[in-house]
């Protein structure tokens, strides 16, 4: 059941993005920005955690979940550090993902050669 919910919720989020791409000519970069900000807003309103509890990775793996992590982090930051937490909370909660992206991205780009486009 967990797998099924992860599958259809995750799939649905991607399907929404695909419809936006086909219908509005939004570029992939804009879609990513739109989805991460949507996740942050939904997370800030407390609307995304119920989806995470229902769908697990189906909600956390899409980039919307990254926005939710940022928002939850900012809230936790304010709870723990007050005003300072506004600026420390989000990035702290997302630190693992951000650092992994940079480190793995850097290493892979160093190691692999560009492919010739056919």
């Amino acid at each position, binding site marked *: 059941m*967990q797998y099924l919910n992860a*599958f*259809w919720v*995750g*799939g*649905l*989020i*991607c*399907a929404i*993005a*695909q419809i*936006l*791409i*086909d219908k509005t000519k939004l570029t*992939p*970069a804009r*879609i*990513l*920005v739109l989805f*991460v*900000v949507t*996740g*942050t*807003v939904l*997370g*800030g309103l407390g609307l995304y955690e119920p989806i995470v509890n229902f769908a*697990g*990775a*189906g909600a*956390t*793996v*899409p*980039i919307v*979940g*990254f*926005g939710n992590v940022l*928002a939850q982090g*900012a*809230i936790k930051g*304010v709870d723990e550090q007050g*005003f300072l*937490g*506004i*600026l420390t909370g*989000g*990035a702290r909660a*997302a630190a*693992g*993902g951000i650092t*992994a*992206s*940079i480190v*793995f*991205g*850097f290493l*892979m*780009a*160093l190691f*692999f*050669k560009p492919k010739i486009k056919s």
Partner: protein
Amino acid sequence: MQYTKQEYLKYLEQKSPNSPLWKDTIFAFLFGGGICTIGQFFLNLYQNTFSMDSEMARTAVSITMIFLGALLTGLDIYCKLAKYAGAGTLVPITGFANAIVSPAIEFKKEGLVLGLASKMFVIAGPVLVYGITASAGVGLIYFIIKQLGG
């Protein structure tokens, strides 16, 4: 024959194949769902076998998926999948990794600083700018509400 710009756009619209919306959407659904299912496998693994709490397990899943996305991009497999999957490979966090590695490899020849390292952020940069700024907004609003509410 001379075309005005508008006529030309109209002509293009007629000649270009109709974007098969349903096919695109179903593929995006299947691939996106599939990637999330793989994520769920790791989530269960980290929670049950490595007994991480849910927050740690979520972070570990993100890191795992980012690694896989970066590796498959390097191996030139991810962009082949993306041809069919569209948003199904873009929206999962693996697509974020892909958006980092792909331009980094492509612009490597322009140098390690202004090529590789700088181009890594062509797409990831805006995502971080807007995501982190939005999180500060959430934090600020929450802080104000907390102050007012006592």
